[in-house]
């Protein structure tokens, strides 16, 4: 009986996947924003000045703080919408990993210099 019970718990998902999907996609968005904002601050003098939230650290302070805020806000919104649902995780994973891959590319200076 116990053996049968543990076998059931090992194969049946109890929690919907929406909450995990929200965290994964938000992390992809937040990572992507690090890359996008780093390139934007490097290319635009206006944005470079705008992103100086803490003068000794320079634009990096605004780039990182803004990306983190976008990440947390996206996470909160997606969590609110998906936490009790099962979502198409394969598509969300693919999107999050593409965003993560783009963030790796955009933070690499030779690629960032192409823009």
């Amino acid at each position, binding site marked *: 009986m116990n053996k049968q019970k543990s076998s059931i718990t090992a194969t049946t998902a109890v*929690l919907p*996947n929406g909450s995990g999907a929200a965290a994964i996609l938000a*992390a992809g968005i937040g990572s992507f924003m690090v890359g996008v904002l*780093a390139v934007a601050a490097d290319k635009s003098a206006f944005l470079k000045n705008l992103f100086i939230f803490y003068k000794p*650290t320079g634009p990096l302070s605004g780039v990182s703080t803004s990306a983190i805020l976008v990440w947390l806000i996206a996470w909160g919104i997606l969590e609110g919408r998906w936490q009790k649902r099962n979502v198409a995780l394969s598509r969300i994973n693919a999107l*999050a990993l593409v965003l993560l891959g783009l963030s790796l590319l955009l933070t690499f200076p030779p690629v*960032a210099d192409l823009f």
Partner: protein
Amino acid sequence: MEITERSLWTLIHGMGFGALYLLACSGALVELYRRYSSKAANPIAPGDDNFLKVYLVAMSVLAWLTVLSGAYIIYPWYRAAAPAGIVNLAAFPQRLLQSNPATSGWHSLGMEWKEHIAWLVPISITMAAAVVIRYGRDLRNHPQLRAALLCFTLVSFLAAGIAGFFGAMLVKHAPVEGGQMIHLMQGE
């Protein structure tokens, strides 16, 4: 035996928080793969489950301490502007690197890459910790969630490795020095 205040902070940032994160990362990757694999024969004990949750939270704390100490304590010393006409640039690491074509790449590629890619680390590992806390042993029933966690944790390892490598090379070519001298012990 002495060390400057700035050197001590560089050690805390790199060898304390950063290197400890890198060491912990390999353990997290193995455990995430092994423990929640649907092929794993044994059920996960509650104690084991809690251990991994605490482990990932500790990694997240280390990752945040690494990037915050780097960006807000050490980086301002690194990028400080040298007064006009100064000849000795030893106290201005960025300017020292940029003053020589043989070393300028350590800034234009190394520091420029390190200062941004490092932020992917706390984002990725905080997400992984949150998902493991939320799902616990049920993660075994969500292979796609587990695959995404492994990818993000792997990327955090790669990003931390890149940041750590360039951090070590930057310290080698233009160390962040200065501040109060701290006497560690008396020599013979």
